[in-house]
């Protein structure tokens, strides 16, 4: 049971939560800028598209809605559900200021508020493209109904996706909180779930490899929002389908809130089981009785062993970062997006290549090193949280930076090298190329592992929540992750290309540093003769010069430069990180 005016309170909670998240984003200017750019750019493209093709579109006349449109909308909806589920499970299964809110309003109010806030966030993303689309439809077809129905369809789509995502998310969170088995194996299970989702996505989007194609999703009612949106325009949808999603959405909202309320109430008022506890009971007696010196940290990070020669402070930092990653794998969610995007692109191109390994092995040589770097040390200061001041005064920068680099080297390096080498030997590579790829993996891992703490320490991200009620999970800044990802994989890819296909690498470089800027400048300059067109000619010259280098020389010189650059960057990053640590003054 909830208080009589829970709906009004839920709206209040939702708006407050939404404003809080806007403020939090606003504090991270770079993130805010990236998000804004991500919103504005596609909308501008849409405006351009509508403007350019307005004549053509007007002339089409009445058409019936193609199934692929429904399928695409259904896919979008499913993607929204995936994101919403993942957000509940990873970031916010419990609420901020829990003891306050739960003694102030009913669980239903809170649930309603979270739903409102999350829907507002989704709509904030959708609002610009949807307005452009709405404006475009009204302008092109002079259909006033669109002005109401497109936004309505967008709201219903966002709301239902968020709702279903929350139902699933709280169910998962509840499982983790109540089942010791799930709690203990949540990392593995989470990985399986993500892989399954990725597989499902590929199955739908890759009809050429036995997939079903997006149209197949048209049978799902969640794609029928588009039928509602096109009413009143010359595009002929199905009224029945529109009615189904309209009524269905209402049912989902009512049923969904009731369901989430029950799940969330159980979750918030249940003491979570701990996956660690079970393990402890199995292994503890032997561990505590048989050893004289206590080795709690070392036991907790087993089977990873830090070599004996490493100094004690460095060893402790390394063990602690391994432990942290292991105990709270949710912090690694930020790795997910690049992995899913790059992974699915790779998969589809790998399946199209003659031998999948010809794609996978170079990809492994480039991506595994990046992961080795990003997994442990992308946001070391933020991970320290409230302990940071103590860390700063208790240990030298040298020991600390070595410590956060160590797990990447100890765990990541062997994996990257063994996987790349093993697969290269099985795959279609000559021995020299295989050795070269292993070399790339080795070098790239060293670069990734040393640059991650450097960018992470220079641009830390701290929890926005006060100490003590912090959610503990502080993912690195988006910008840092993107920067590190491109900085590592870009040059590593180029080096791989130099090794395997120097002519292609040469053309690529000539294009990027010569022909592309030349073409762009020429485009801007137009017919005018002046500085711009001179610059364009100059860039063109560079492109031609690069292109005229022979493949072998390019391989030697380009590869050599990249290797030297990698070494320089590694040393520099390491020293910069150490220096930053030694001079850092925490703000609180």
């Amino acid at each position, binding site marked *: 049971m909830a208080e009589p005016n829970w709906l009004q309170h839920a709206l209040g909670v939702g708006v407050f939560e939404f404003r809080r998240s806007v403020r939090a984003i606003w504090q991270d200017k770079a993130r805010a800028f990236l998000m804004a750019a991500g919103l504005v750019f596609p909308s501008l493209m849409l405006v351009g598209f509508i403007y350019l093709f307005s004549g053509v579109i007007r002339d089409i006349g009445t058409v019936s809605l193609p199934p692929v449109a429904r399928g695409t909308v259904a896919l979008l909806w499913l993607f929204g559900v995936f994101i919403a589920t993942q957000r509940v499970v990873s970031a916010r299964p419990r609420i901020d200021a829990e003891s306050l809110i739960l003694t102030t309003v009913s669980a239903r109010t809170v649930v309603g508020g979270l739903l409102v806030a999350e829907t507002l966030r989704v709509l904030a993303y959708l609002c610009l493209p949807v307005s452009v689309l709405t404006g475009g439809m009204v302008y092109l077809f002079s259909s006033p109904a669109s002005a109401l129905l497109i936004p309505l369809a967008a709201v219903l789509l966002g709301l239902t996706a968020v709702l279903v995502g929350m139902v699933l998310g709280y169910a998962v969170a509840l499982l983790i909180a109540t089942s010791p088995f799930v709690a203990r194996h949540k990392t593995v299970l989470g990985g399986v779930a993500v892989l399954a989702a990725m597989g499902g996505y590929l199955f739908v989007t890759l009809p050429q490899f036995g997939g079903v194609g997006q149209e197949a999703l048209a049978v799902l009612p969640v794609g029928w929002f588009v039928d509602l949106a096109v009413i009143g325009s010359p595009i002929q949808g199905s009224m029945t389908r529109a009615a189904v999603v309209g009524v269905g959405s209402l049912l989902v909202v009512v049923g969904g809130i009731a369901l989430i309320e029950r799940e969330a109430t159980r979750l918030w*008022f249940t003491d979570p089981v701990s996956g660690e506890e079970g393990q402890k009971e199995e292994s503890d007696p032997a561990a505590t009785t048989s050893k004289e010196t206590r080795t709690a940290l070392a036991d907790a990070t087993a089977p990873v062993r830090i070599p004996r020669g490493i100094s004690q402070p460095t060893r402790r930092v390394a063990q602690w970062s391994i432990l942290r990653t292991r105990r709270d794998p949710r912090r690694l969610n930020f790795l997910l997006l690049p992995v899913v995007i790059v992974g699915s692109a790779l998969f589809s191109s790998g399946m199209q290549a003659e031998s999948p390994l010809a794609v996978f092995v170079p990809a492994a040589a480039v991506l595994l090193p990046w992961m080795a770097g990003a997994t442990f040390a992308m946001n070391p200061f933020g991970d320290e949280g409230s302990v940071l001041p103590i860390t700063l005064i208790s240990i030298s920068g040298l020991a600390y930076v070595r410590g956060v680099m160590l797990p990447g080297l100890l765990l990541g390096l062997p994996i990257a090298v063994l996987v790349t080498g093993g697969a290269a030997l099985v795959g279609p590579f000559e021995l020299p190329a295989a050795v070269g790829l292993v070399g790339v993996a080795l070098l790239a891992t060293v670069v990734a592992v040393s640059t991650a703490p450097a960018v992470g320490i220079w641009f830390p991200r701290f929890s926005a929540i*006060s100490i003590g009620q912090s959610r503990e999970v502080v993912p690195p800044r988006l910008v840092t992750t993107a920067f590190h990802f491109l900085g590592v994989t870009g040059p590593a890819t180029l080096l791989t290309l130099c090794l395997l296909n120097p002519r292609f690498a040469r053309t690529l470089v000539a294009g990027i540093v010569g022909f592309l800027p030349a073409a762009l400048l020429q485009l801007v300059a137009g017919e005018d003769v002046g500085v711009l067109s001179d610059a364009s000619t100059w860039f063109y010259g560079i492109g031609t010069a690069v292109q005229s280098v022979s493949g072998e020389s390019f391989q030697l010189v380009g590869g050599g430069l990249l290797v030297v650059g990698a070494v320089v960057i590694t040393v520099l990053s390491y020293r910069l990180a150490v220096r930053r640590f030694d001079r850092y003054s925490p703000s609180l």
Partner: protein
Amino acid sequence: MPSIETTALTKRYGSTTAVDQLDFSVPDGTVYGFLGPNGAGKTTTMRILTGLTTPTSGSATVAGVPVTNRDSLRPHIGYLPEEPPLYEQATAYEQLEYVAGLRDLPSRETQNRIDELLDRLDLSPDDAATRIAEYSKGMRQKVAYVQAVLHDPDVAFLDEPTSGLDPRAARTIRELIGELSDEGTTVFLSTHILPVVEEVADTVGILYDGKLVAEDTPDQLTQRAETGETRTLEDAFLELTSTDPAQDDTEETYG
């Protein structure tokens, strides 16, 4: 009618028993001082009584409502937890208005009450209009206190309300607690600062290892102390909560 009443209240976390067969009752409008060493189970008891955690066994009522009936319980209680539950991105004004709104308090009166309480706690309007992210520990504690008593609850649960406060603010809190109980609010108070309890509590309960080992007025408890030249509540506390009372060192003197 007692405002808080517990019967064999028990809470277990795995193999630890945080609260063990608690039986006590707090009359309406009185101040109950809840003492006990670290880890005795004070916070756990409060979390049960505020409905945030369900007891493993036993039962309790607050303001006549069973604590498992959260929806009826909520309007009667105010809770100041150990960690001030505040939103970093909000200002004190925003936070307090938000919470007042959630409780449906009349806005004008509430505003006056907020201003009055903040003023008495020496939190200036300028500070109150600043983001909580920039607050000191004591400032946070003050806002959290105001938040807990803003709606004039029937029962206020205060977990270490003076923690982090300067002497002046701590005194103000003691006065405010006195006023609360004069106006009929029952105050359930946990603290480690014994003079606070001595001053404001009508009854003191001492919790040790999840069990209630003594319950009496502060004066009576002080009388019970066997050690010390001048007996204090501190002596009583130390005796009652030592691992082995029989072995207690009577030779030991303080200061």
